[in-house]
């Protein structure tokens, strides 16, 4: 291997690593706010990418159908709750607002399939659809489990992952797809060819991180989310609805996941289940960050990306084995410096 190849591998690894970093950040976000180890994060990647593929080829994406079904289930439950606890304007308002947003996004999904709509708009529509799917899944599956243990939430996550993968196969079929590059540019720096797509991914990742750090550091809503992560009881006592915080966290995670998918789709073929492996690597990075540290998780993700790229060059068949083996020393270190997460929750 010469320097030229090494530089190429580093560039490649950093591009993929940036996507892992985005997913790792999303996983840390969801875990800290809701205590859910969100295995289905990767499904958002496939859903986002394949929804945009559908829009790009002039088809109405099947994800709209899924969204409508999930929305109906959520509303049915809300109405049932109303019947049980008595009328409340707040709940009715919530249902009406939700109805309007869902209807709006579905309509956009239909319009988005037309050829005149620019790609950026299609990407935004796909992200909106996946975000709504994500929040609906949270409301249906996780909200009733709010006071459950981390283990129960994890088991639910595995169930949601399997369900979403199966639904993904039914919606998108077994064939993979790609999209044309978002940025069709190339630049040569010395012997190294930098593609516009990898720059776009890097910039998007950086922007997402900056936006998140602004959100958590400067806005009251962001601080409320941080407060919920730190002390749920304290948060409730100042009037922060932990359920709403959970929905917001899931929404942001779904946005990050689907955007990653859209960024990745021009680089590699995306299948209905591609997201799982990508999400799993994001998960390893999140574990490196102890499921709580955003910067450590992001750096871990970049390292995983670069390592993976070098391993693929040397021995591609063992790529995933080696990357997943990486988690062992991290877990060993973590278990040696063990602090019981469930204990922390009760404090």
């Amino acid at each position, binding site marked *: 291997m010469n320097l030229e190849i090494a530089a190429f591998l580093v560039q490649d690894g950093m591009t993929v690593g940036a996507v892992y970093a985005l997913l790792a950040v999303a996983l840390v976000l969801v875990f800290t706010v809701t205590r859910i180890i969100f295995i289905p994060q990767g499904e958002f990647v496939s859903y986002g990418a394949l929804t945009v593929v559908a829009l790009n080829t002039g088809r109405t994406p099947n994800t709209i159908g899924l969204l409508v079904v999930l929305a109906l289930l959520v509303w049915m439950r809300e109405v049932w709750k109303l019947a049980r606890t*008595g009328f409340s304007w*707040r709940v009715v308002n919530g249902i009406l607002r939700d109805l309007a947003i869902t209807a709006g996004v579905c309509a956009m999904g239909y319009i988005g399939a037309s050829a005149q709509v620019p790609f950026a708009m299609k990407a935004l529509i796909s992200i909106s659809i996946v975000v709504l799917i994500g929040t609906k899944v949270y409301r249906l599956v996780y909200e009733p489990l709010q006071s459950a243990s981390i283990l129960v939430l994890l088991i639910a996550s595995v169930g949601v992952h399997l369900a979403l993968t199966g639904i993904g196969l039914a919606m998108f079929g077994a064939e993979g797809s790609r999209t044309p590059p978002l940025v069709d540019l190339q630049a040569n720096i010395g012997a190294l060819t930098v593609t516009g797509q990898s720059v776009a991914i890097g910039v998007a990742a950086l922007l997402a991180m900056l936006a998140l750090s602004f959100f958590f550091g400067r806005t009251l809503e962001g601080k409320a989310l941080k407060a919920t992560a730190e*002390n749920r*009881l304290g948060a409730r*006592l100042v009037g*922060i609805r932990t359920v709403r915080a959970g929905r917001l966290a899931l929404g942001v995670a779904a946005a990050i996941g689907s955007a990653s998918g859209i960024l990745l789709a021009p680089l590699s073929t995306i299948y209905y289940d591609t997201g799982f492996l990508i999400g799993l690597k994001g998960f390893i990075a999140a574990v490196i960050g102890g499921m709580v540290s955003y910067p450590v998780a992001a750096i871990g993700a970049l390292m995983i990306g670069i390592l993976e790229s070098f391993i693929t060059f040397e021995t591609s068949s063992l790529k995933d084995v080696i990357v997943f083996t990486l988690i062992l020393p991290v877990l060993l270190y973590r278990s040696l410096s063990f602090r019981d997460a469930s204990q922390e929750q009760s404090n």
Partner: protein
Amino acid sequence: MSGPILDVRSLSVSYGKIEAIHALSLEVRPGTIVTVIGPNGAGKSTTLNAVSGLLPSRGTIQFLGRDVSNSEVEDRVEAGLILVPERRELFTGMTVSDNLRLGAYRFRRESHTEMASRLEAVYSTFPRLEERSSQLAGTLSGGERQMLAIGRALMSRPSLLMLDEPSLGLAPLVTREIFRIIAALRRTGVAVLLIEQNARAALEIADYGYVIERGAVVMADKAASLSENPKLIETYLGLPAVH
């Protein structure tokens, strides 16, 4: 408003099969301080937790004339019913000023100037908090934490402030300061429901008092009359007040 701000009727709370509170009734009138005293395990904290909505209960809880018995904690907070629990429940990894700002979460749609004037008001009540504003809440002393917990509650302009053992674990001098501030709240129109081990100190600042034992009210009278009640003096007021 002439009626009570908080009107609790026949409140019962059970932990499994054990009934911790049985048919308890109490009321708090606007701008008054009401204290609930009683031995350890009498159900004082349980009462506050039920009124705040943290614990499921039976019976009716009317707040500002509205039945809130079935509302969530967050809805009661929105209405201005604020609890400062015994453990304070601060956001220890966040700064003092962020903790205070989050206290005003129910006014999150208001302008920055409104928020600033709220902060200003709390800082003038607790100058210590202003000095520590950029410090993490976890690094504060016990007294400062209690001040922050009360300050955070005041940020939400409560109609009724419920304090659970505010003097717990605090040095006598700090306790005195906290009680002085609680007594001063009356002038700002905030009603207070206070639970306190230090019964004498509590009765000194309170207008009205309830004595509860084994989950039921056994005595209720004006605070001044309670402090002179021989039975009460023997049971709870034997120790001199902290002053």
